[in-house]
């Protein structure tokens, strides 16, 4: 079996938001919609203050709360763990958006462009009105993965088959791969490092692992 996951090394992330920009570029999301975003978290009290940059987005959970609540079956989970949305079925009730503990889902009701009321040339070319009035979220760049696999490439290793955010990460903080493969890059990282998953107490089984220290 295959289970695609993302590993984010919190020791490496510098909060540059290149992954966010790459995601927007790859998926043509409208202003205000960030399928991959990087949180800037502060902790401690002055003068002993630390900052941590935390990439977040859809966690492609094992038990996705968004899937359970979806009344239309637009939200589905593939055998490889990727949670998808069928824009042609979704009714835009946003129940999934309130059910998601990771704030990963967006619903945009009307077209919005970066520079005023009119789309730029790029926005006009890539505008997809099927995304209006429905839920959207990170897909782990599922099209790249599927097309890459068809070409015999390995997602997480070959850039052409890897999500845009992981490809663009300048500090190699984001790593994508198959956790069911013991020899994969993500399996190796998880063996060699301490990690946690966010909101694990909610029993969603997130497919997003955060490295924080060496074993």
């Amino acid at each position: 079996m295959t289970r695609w996951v993302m590993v984010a090394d919190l020791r490496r992330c510098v909060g540059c938001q290149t992954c966010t920009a790459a995601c927007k570029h790859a998926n043509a999301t409208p202003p205000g919609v960030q399928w991959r975003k990087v949180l800037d978290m502060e902790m401690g009290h002055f003068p002993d203050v630390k900052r941590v940059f935390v990439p977040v987005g859809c966690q492609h959970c094992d038990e996705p709360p968004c899937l359970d609540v979806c009344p239309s079956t637009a939200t589905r989970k593939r055998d490889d763990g990727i949670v998808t949305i069928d824009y042609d079925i979704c009714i835009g009730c946003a129940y999934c958006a309130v059910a998601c503990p990771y704030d990963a889902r967006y619903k945009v009701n009307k077209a919005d462009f970066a520079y005023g009321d009119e789309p730029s040339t790029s926005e006009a070319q890539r505008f997809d009105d099927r995304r209006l009035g429905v839920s959207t979220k990170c897909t782990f760049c599922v099209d790249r993965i599927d097309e890459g696999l068809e070409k015999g490439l390995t997602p997480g290793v070959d850039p052409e088959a890897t999500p845009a955010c992981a490809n663009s990460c300048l500090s190699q903080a984001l790593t994508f791969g198959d956790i069911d493969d013991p020899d994969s890059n993500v399996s190796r990282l998880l063996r060699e490092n301490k990690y946690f998953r966010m909101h694990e107490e909610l029993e969603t089984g997130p497919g997003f692992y955060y490295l924080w220290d060496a074993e």
Partner: protein
Amino acid sequence: MNGVTPRLQPNWDWRAAGNFTFGGTGTGFLVFASIAALGGFPVRLPGLIGMAFVALGLTMVWLEIGKPWRFLNVYFHPQRSWMTREAYAALPLFAVGGLAVLLDQPGLLLTAAALGLIFLYCQARILRAAKGVPAWRAPLLLPLILTTGLTEGACLLLIALSLLGQMPAWPVIAAALLVVLRGFLWRDYLNRLRMGAPSETLAVLSSFGKIFLILGHAVPLIAFILGATTPGASLYMAPAGAIFALLAGWAMKYTIVTKAAHKQGFAILHHPSRGPKGTGGPGVKPGWN
């Protein structure tokens, strides 16, 4: 920490709240009107009023969805989605309720009321299943929503009875007991949330709770007691108290759905080690009490 602390969910507004508000009132009213109908209370108009409330709630949520003309897709996921189950529960509710009205049959109205309870239960489960909102997924919200719907129904019956110039003791006692139960459930719901919830949620609910308990519980109970102990006063004191308790229930659901619905936010269990000699440490959960 902007963007990190739990933010108010932006998706479900007053229209979604209207579904829970009017759905609860309508089904609760069907329950009490059907019981009253066994003792001679009319079937037709109360049946219509109960169903109208439910229909109004559903219409409001229909106005909220992004693709309203795909509304039939809501029926696709009965295996797991409480929203689908709510939609299914509405079908026999309207069918049997419609027959009850058409045939003027108290027994059918009672059946419609039982279906209404299923509808109400589905509504409560809809909120409970929303894992992203701590104030909704709290276990005690389920009995709170159920009790609130029944309280509103009993209160609406008191108002209807007063318009007919009647005020038997049993609906007043039922409404009073439900108001007391709702008050206790509210207190426990809030106390449980205080053990772990977004600070903003607690601030909103704590602030609302003071007014809610006074206007939605103390005032109605005083009115019910005054009505019961003062000869001839029940006919206007009971509905006066009922109006307060009814509006308080609506306000409670509106507040929970739209004002106290802060999302989970973000948290890390550990902060990362940095540098060759760095060590990791405890994490942070911003915006939680």
